[in-house]
């Protein structure tokens, strides 16, 4: 089962603190959305609003066209997969997974059969009689997923589901979550603070900061052409180059760039480390002195100081073939389409 979700004009206050500000978002049926942001940005509050655990101070939530803003979690077509999994320790895995069906009044034989199907979906059908404490972290996570999906929700809400797993397991669970979502077709809304995780699984990333949506779009678009400076910085490592806009041209320490989009005044030019190359062409950064360099397998990450701006330090990803020595001098340039410009943040 699956359904579209519409959030409209959501504002929420905890006492004097405004946790959510003017959140409006349309989620298509069957879409995999991640809410991405630092801790305290309101992403978990927004998930709680979707799940019915928090009633927003203002605004409405529609699921499948129905206004569910005032409905309790039990009455919503949503289920939540909690951060600590919240499995029932006194029940077998089968009874855990069948719990929602039991609450829905399904008969014993039928719900047990369905629970076993769900456990099979996550590869744990052999462990149906075990208790949660006999499982590893990754297995508990799968049980939580099976339990949440067993009731065929229209929307599955995942609250930092992979946060407690080690890196390797997390990467493999990402792939599994994505493939299970493709199989069941349910709308998934997944909260995370890990931008790599967000890029790995999301159809669309919603970047949040301080209770607002900073940017929303497919991972490649949000990474390459973010809507705000915050979104640009949060999506990955980035060089910030100060500049001034005049007459549709941005002036920086490295020369001028034609830039018709921006208003006049101070701006920040953003440049991803991998957009910088050795050689000529594109936007030239001129000569730069290497400070240090480290080998990362797929690339060499180096800190360099441009001759044109000695008080600036740039991070550069170079091809892994050769590792420059400190004090080597490189000729650097950047792709035009790896460049984004934002109004400078007020300090």
């Amino acid at each position, binding site marked *: 089962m699956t359904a579209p979700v519409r959030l409209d004009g959501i504002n929420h206050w905890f006492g004097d603190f405004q946790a959510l500000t003017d959140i409006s978002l349309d989620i298509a049926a069957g879409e995999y959305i991640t809410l991405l942001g630092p801790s305290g940005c309101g992403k978990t509050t927004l998930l709680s609003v979707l*799940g*019915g*655990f928090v009633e927003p101070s203002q605004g409405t939530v529609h699921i499948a066209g129905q206004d569910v803003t005032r409905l*309790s*979690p*039990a009455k919503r077509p*949503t*289920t*939540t997969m*909690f951060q*600590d999994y*919240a*499995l*029932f*320790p*006194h029940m077998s895995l089968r009874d855990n997974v069948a*719990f*929602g069906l039991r*609450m*829905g009044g399904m008969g014993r034989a039928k719900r047990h059969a369905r629970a076993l199907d769900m456990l099979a979906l996550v590869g744990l059908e052999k462990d149906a009689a075990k208790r949660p404490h006999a499982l590893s972290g990754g297995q508990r996570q799968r049980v939580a997923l099976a*339990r*949440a999906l067993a*009731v065929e929700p229209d929307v599955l809400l995942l609250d930092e589901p992979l946060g407690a797993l080690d890196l390797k397991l997390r990467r493999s669970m990402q792939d599994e979550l994505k493939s299970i979502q493709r199989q069941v077709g349910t709308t998934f809304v997944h909260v995370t603070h890990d931008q790599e995780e967000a890029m790995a699984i999301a159809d669309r990333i919603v970047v949040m900061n301080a209770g607002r949506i900073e940017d929303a779009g497919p991972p490649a678009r949000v990474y390459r052409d973010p809507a705000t400076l915050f979104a640009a910085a949060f999506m990955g490592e980035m060089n910030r180059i100060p500049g001034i806009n005049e007459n549709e041209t941005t002036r920086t320490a490295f020369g001028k760039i034609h830039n018709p989009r921006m208003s006049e005044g101070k701006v920040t030019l953003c440049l991803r480390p991998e957009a910088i190359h050795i050689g000529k062409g594109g936007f030239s950064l001129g000569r730069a002195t290497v400070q240090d360099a480290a080998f990362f397998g797929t690339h060499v990450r180096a800190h360099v100081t441009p001759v044109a701006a000695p008080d600036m330090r740039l991070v550069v990803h170079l091809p892994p073939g050769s590792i420059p020595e400190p004090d080597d001098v490189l000729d650097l340039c950047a792709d035009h389409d790896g460049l984004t410009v934002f109004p400078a943040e007020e300090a």
Partner: protein
Amino acid sequence: MMRAAPWLYLVAAFVFIYLPVGALVLFSFQGGSLPVPPFDGPSLQWYGDILSDDDLTDALRNSLIVAVGSAAVACALGFLAAYALARFVLPGAALMRGLLIAPLTVSYLIVGLGLLMVLQRLGLGLSLWTAGIGHVVINLPLCFAIIYASMGAQQQNAERAARDLGANEAQVILLITAPMLAPAILAAFFLSVTLSWDEFIIAFLLTRFDITLPVEIWSMLRSGLSPRLNAIGSLVFLVSVTAVLLLEILVFRKRA
């Protein structure tokens, strides 16, 4: 010598604690009619004697009923109070917690006298029911404290998950909270059973015709020492030990 001292101390301490109980149990098997040395048993005659005494077996049964009944009621009320105070933001919660635990500091004599006055003012006759009410009053604070202390975030998250999956409030309590708190609830229950089982003052003040075992023993004591008393005491001790062992096996073994 230095090594012997701590062992000597240990043995002395245990003898001090267990000698009276040991002597009591030993002389319940006395052959003669006085529970004093020399020991001329073993004999089961006094056990046969008390078990064929209807007053005593009635008192034994009464005690069991009051102990189990009052412990069950105290646990149920303590659990509900703990659940409310742990899960909901209530006005005056700190005061309510304090008021629930405060009776622990009041002596049983005061609790018993107070209840006696209230019951007589209300015109309620004294019976096993009134003794049971008294035992609920003294055991409720303990049950509340034990169960409240074991309510943590783990159950709270599981409860939230159960609600999310469609459980109503009664289903959350019966299927999730109570089973997850079973160790604490059982501990509170068995502790209440043992405390009620050998409680004397309140039972003495609040019963009249049907009496509990400690009250019966007290009335027998007035006619002087007899190995019968030792035999009853041993039975009382046996029941208490059984309750503690059950607690150990059902609650603490499971956790390990």
